[in-house]
């Protein structure tokens, strides 16, 4: 790793101040950032650890019935606490990495990083979630801006993510067996306003909504409604884990299965 200093603020306002420094970067659970630092893919001058800030941890429900997850909440906690209120989300969290990773990795860190194979972006996008930061609120549809890119500004911290609870939802993940990242992951959520289908792991542009599938499912929420619909291979990731054609094929298969499992 390149040299850096590290700060460990205990309040959000201290963290915001610390992140104003030149070359400062937020550190969540570290499950992605620390390997990146070791590989010298990131070179911050100051790491601002958010792990001691209690006010951004925790899960609750707001007045509109949305589930609010603090940005510093580890996946393991989401898996344990949401099993009744939003089971698809709990199930997604329970399958990230492995148990030790889930004890450290946070939702805020995952969304801010926007790894094209991460699971949380699919959940946020499919749930029409609202990402709350230290300075504003951003709709999920506006949040993701491409591979490893979001609209977050320098030093902006994800403090909370608010998920409207759907009528039905399911997350299907075809894991890359070694890393357990999503080779392709599809999150389907049915709301009164319509069905949303978010796909991760597949596209060179990162997480996206499969609008053709959404249209079909909004009028008929069944796997049969997707018969004959497939996703193009163009623009899909091709790497040592799978060809673009394979990923495109999996999008179709997993979307149908998500719909069938959502019930």
């Amino acid at each position, binding site marked *: 790793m390149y040299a850096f200093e590290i700060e460990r603020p205990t309040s959000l306002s201290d963290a915001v101040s610390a992140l104003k420094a030149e070359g400062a970067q937020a550190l969540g659970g570290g499950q992605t950032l620390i390997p990146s630092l070791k590989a010298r893919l990131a070179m911050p001058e100051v790491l601002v650890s958010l792990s001691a800030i209690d006010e951004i941890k925790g899960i609750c429900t707001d007045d509109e019935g949305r589930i609010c997850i603090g940005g510093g909440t580890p996946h393991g906690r989401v898996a344990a606490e949401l099993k009744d209120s939003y089971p698809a989300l709990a199930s997604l969290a329970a399958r990230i990495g492995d148990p030790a990773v889930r004890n450290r990795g946070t939702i805020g860190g995952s969304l801010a990083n926007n790894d094209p194979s991460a699971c949380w972006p699919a959940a946020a996008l499919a749930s029409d979630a609202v990402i709350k930061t230290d300075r504003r609120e951003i709709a999920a549809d506006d949040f993701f801006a491409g591979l490893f890119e979001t609209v977050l500004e320098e030093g902006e911290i994800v403090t909370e993510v608010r998920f409207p609870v759907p009528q039905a939802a399911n997350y299907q993940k075809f894991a890359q*067996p070694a890393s357990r990242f999503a080779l392709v992951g599809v999150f389907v959520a049915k709301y009164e306003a319509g069905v949303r289908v978010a796909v991760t792991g597949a596209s060179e542009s990162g997480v996206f909504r499969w609008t053709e599938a959404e249209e079909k499912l909004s009028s008929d929420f069944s796997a049969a409604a997707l018969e004959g619909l497939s996703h193009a291979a163009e623009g899909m990731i091709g790497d040592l884990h799978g060809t673009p054609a394979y990923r495109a094929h999996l999008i179709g*298969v997993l979307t149908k299965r998500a719909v069938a499992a959502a019930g």
Partner: protein
Amino acid sequence: MSVATPLPHDSAPLHVTGRARYVDDIPAPAGTLHLAFGLSPIARGRIKAMDLAAVRAAPGVVRVLTREDLPNACDTSPSAHDEPLLAEGEVFYAGQAVFLVIATSHLAARKAARLGKVEYEEMEPLLSYDETLAAGAEFEAEPRVWQKGDAGAAIAAAPRRLTGRIEIGGQEHFYLEGQAALAIPDDGGAMHVVTSTQHPTEIQHKVADALGLPMAMVRSECRRMGGGFGGKESQGNALAVACAVAAKLTGRACKMRYDRDDDMVITGKRHDFRIDYDVGYDDGGRIAGIDFTQVTRGGWSMDLTLPVADRAMLHADNAYHLPACRITSHRLRTNMCSATAYRGFGGPQGVLGIERMMDEIAHVLGIDPVEVRRVNYYADCAGGGGGGGPSAPRSAAPSPPERYLEQDRSPGSGHAMSGALAGAGKRFGAEHSPVARPVEPQTTPYGMEVKDFLLNGMTAKLLADCDYAGRRAAIRAWNERSPILKRGIGFSPVKFGISFTLTHLNQAGALVHVYQDGSIHLNHGGTEMGQGLFQKVAQVAAARFGVDVAQVRITATDTAKVPNTSATAASSGTDLNGMAAMAACDAIRERMAECLAGLHQAKPEAVVFEGGEVRVGEAAMSFAQAATLCYENRVSLSATGFYRTPDLAWDRIRGQGRPFFYFAHGCAVTEVAIDTLTGENRILRADILHDVGASLNPAIDRGQIEGGYVQGAGWLTTEELVWDDKGRLRTHAPSTYKIPACSDRPPVFNVELWDGENPEATIYRSKAVGEPPFMLGISAFLALSDACAACGPHYPALDAPATAERVLAAVKRARG
């Protein structure tokens, strides 16, 4: 009695409390320096310029060495002396060491290494099978060809014929403990090296050569490895030599370990293979003749490619009698890491070649794949074992194993043995009675008689016990009703030859001390990598003295105690070192018996060592008291032991002789499920019946069988190595290379040991168990093929590893 007892691996309390030390845990002397290599990023090229100024100036750096700074090439090869420690003007693979950094910390060394600026004139690397064959880049002047009968004529005359090809991937060892070495300079230029290695003697040899020292001035040790699997047979040489050279130059202790990514890039892998088959057979599936072409990519240097490729040829027959056979083997030199030893050592690849062929024959004929196997099995044979057949003359003087057999068979013998071994040995399981007994034993393609073939009986037992027929029928019915998920069931047998094919390696030594307080110090040339060798040999020593195994102190493998040892490899560690230890123990025991007999006016044969006691006539004493008494009577209580495997004779050019002392057998039935929409697959159940002779330690043997199966299944399913078109390894971390995890082993996993004895005089009539079970994983691959075949009329022609995407492709091929 300690043999045939399920004792745990040694050092249990140390392992579970984190106190068991591996090389990197050893408290190093003050001032120890740390080493790191600067590696070539390209697969083939000439070094035009090397600017290491920034490396030398980096914090913590003490010295930076290139080839010019070394006294000689400091070769690290186990064979052809074609591996200079540092590149000599040219690089031959991406990952080759070009310079060596010596620094005050591990991190400082690695960071400094990144600062090297090396300019290369890039050349075209040879990577693929076809381009390398076309270029004629092979390790031997001609391909190796072995023949039995006239395969061409037999194939042409046969009623049916088919040709096919299978591509077989390599495998990364992924020992949890990476490569590591520590060198400490001794007085007068001598050097002490501690390495995570299966071959301390080779470390000693290579270090001595590099330093220009006689071997007696180098001491090489290993207490334990955190996994080896063949990956530490030769690949530790580079670290040990680097550390020794650096230690000599600096006068300080030097330590080196590879970071995991570096380890995966630098070190060799299992040889990948491409095997073509051309077979003539009849309507019953009986083989008339086969023509195999085996091609393997050996990487940039020879390393162990010749014996690996030889062993692939030696196992091209697996369990089947081939009336006529021709095997052509090409050993390709490619610009990749040097493929090396790995559990099975070419055997699994050869076996998979014929198993795939059998699978295809069964498909064409529409018959149960098991029947094709059985109809081609070697026949059981009357009279086997006990010292070699007509092809190898009996040795003149009785070697230790024969002598102990004579003694142990006589009633009232002074040497107590475990109940299971007293009296005449059992030859086969009680329910097995061989049906056809030809007068002349059948021979393998290389002319070795197959005199103790167990698979007819083992197959019958396994198939019955696991209800193969019933389940196969049930799976077919289930598949009819299941459009998306398909199940498959596969059976594979293995007959694996035990001994080093390089005959002179089949030797071992031991050193045993009985101290005057009765405690026992045991040392031998075998190394412990988790296979339980140390415990098994300790059990033998304890059995010879009639004491509890806790009284035997297991000590680090050390060239200063036992010289000229072979690698712990070829599954032979227990066989060879157990016999050597036994010889040493027996020598001491005989002296003790003679002394005590003399003191009690008795015959030495009447002295009994049992239950921690020694009894002579009416007198009884503890083993400790006996030791004290012998010491006071000036009896030497220390002895060396030696063993050499008898009756081996092997001509590797002609491909004729007896390369193996005996065969170990096993068979497995695996059931899998596949998702025909994604290719995802899962192993549901495995049933294994394995032949370990008379087991020295059933718990350790079971662990080897289970571990071998899982590792073999991993090799053929998820463990995919990927190189890019520039020859760089892309799968160089556990995030991209998937080895089996806890959730990957089959939920139903039944393992049984075949009840029998080794007819050959091995240590307590046991059989080697390290490698043979690895090939049982082939049944998982065949089960996947069966599941794919359930999708359509065509043969799926599945290649290995059967990743999800490959399974999906095979499903499509089956459908047509």
